[in-house]
């Protein structure tokens, strides 16, 4: 039987528990979403936060302690969604530095990024921003020391071992490698979000 979860208090009205993987975080968050007294349940990449009504703190704490992490990855069998990227230049102002940090040529970086099948692990940050895993082993890039005040919609960044796509204009701290015309979020579409966790993604260079 998996170990009991240990809720950590990260605010007066938020508990957080650590889990092993993004898929585990997604599964646990779905399971906890109906807990009475939970105002909001949000997965991170390796943890789940539960914001609660302070009057219901004990119910929420008990629900967290009794939850069992599962690892049902909702991996899609559908063929990967293709996302076309213009790499580098004005579209990806940090591509050169990222390549320098990894000791790769720009062509080798693009070949690696487009060569793998990636997986959407999480939607978060702003509407439709997608955290996508699948970078080769050893690719790991820190965030910018200070976030940019304005990153254009469609910008593609990488951070640690993830590719992230900015769905909206706004501030952003990820080094940018390119841009896509794919619309990850449109409020007036029947399905507002292009990507969902578990979906597979193939990047193509334009």
């Amino acid at each position, binding site marked *: 039987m998996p170990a009991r979860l240990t809720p950590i208090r990260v605010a007066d009205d938020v508990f*957080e528990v650590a889990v092993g993987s993004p898929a585990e975080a997604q599964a646990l968050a779905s399971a906890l979403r109906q807990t009475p007294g939970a105002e909001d349940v*949000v*997965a991170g990449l390796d943890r789940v936060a539960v914001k609660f009504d*302070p009057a219901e703190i004990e119910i929420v704490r008990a629900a967290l302690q009794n939850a069992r992490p599962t690892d049902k990855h909702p991996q899609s069998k559908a063929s990967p969604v293709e996302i076309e990227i213009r790499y580098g230049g004005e579209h990806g102002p940090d591509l050169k530095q990222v390549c320098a940090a990894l000791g790769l040529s720009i062509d080798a970086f693009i070949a690696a990024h487009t060569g793998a099948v990636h997986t959407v692990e999480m939607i*978060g940050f*702003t509407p439709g921003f997608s955290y996508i895993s699948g970078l080769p082993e050893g690719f*790991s890039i*820190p*965030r910018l020391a200070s976030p940019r005040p304005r990153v254009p919609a469609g910008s593609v960044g990488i951070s640690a071992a993830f590719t992230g796509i900015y769905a909206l204009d706004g501030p952003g701290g990820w080094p940018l490698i390119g841009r896509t015309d794919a619309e990850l979020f449109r409020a007036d579409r029947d399905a507002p979000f292009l990507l969902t966790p578990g979906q597979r993604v193939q990047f193509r260079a334009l």
Partner: protein
Amino acid sequence: MLVVTKPSLQTTLQGAPRLGYRHYGIPYSGAADALSQALANRLVGNAATETVLEITYGGFEAEVTEACTIAVAGACGLITISGETASAHTSLHLRSGDRIEIAPLRHGMRTYLAIRSGFAATEAFGSSSTYLPAGFGGLDGRALQAGDRLAPEGDANFRQTLETPPTHRPVFSSAIALRACASAETDTLNRADRETLFMETFLADRQATRMGIGLTGHTVTPNSDGKMKSAPVFPGTVQCPPSGAPVILLCDAQTTGGYPRIASIARCDRHLLGQIRPGDRVQLLERSPEAALQDLAEKQRLLAAWLDA
């Protein structure tokens, strides 16, 4: 009907927070100062989160085309109705043809104007609140412009004239103390930086938006490699990028982030965040989570005597 003649720097329609969509990356939105929204709504007999105007820095004018009852709360400069001085914190019965003017503010940042029955607005993801970065909610998802016509949701005339009790009128100044708790990555600060965070007075920088307020004047440096896995954040979370300048997140806060979370503003004081303007002095007062919830219960008890009366 209210016709906007001068929209202020940024006026939006704000109702209830958009709960339950953070896992799609959709922030709460709603009033940056939810207490002032509730106080304005109380004076026209509305529920606390009915849709109101959130006016930034004052400098707002509108014309009334049908009799209605409104009320103004939050940070306030001079208010006039067709040239006559009027009061905040009271029900104002307006006639067709009246002009309402709210002068620029000296202290605080946001004024709330409620109308009996609430302003009509477009719902998106379960709430009428405007979220400007993605352009949904409110009026076409945008800030109000001169010429916009705002209709009430129902009958806009309220028969009573109410006044907020003097004891329940918040006073805004340029020095703000916020109760705060340690958060998930507070221990990435060394002892000296932790003392700085909870003892020193910071200044709100020029980037004071509905998404967040940057703090300057002191730096604190989390011990982090910049590769932290993105984790949930909420309004009230204090994040700290490697630059050492903490950012307090507000109502339009992103839903996840990868900078260390070094503190969280206590739930009882989050309404104050909406009134912090650039240059204000900001101090965080450390509380244990239990003490912070006791403070919340105490504040709620005091407010309920008026808001739930």
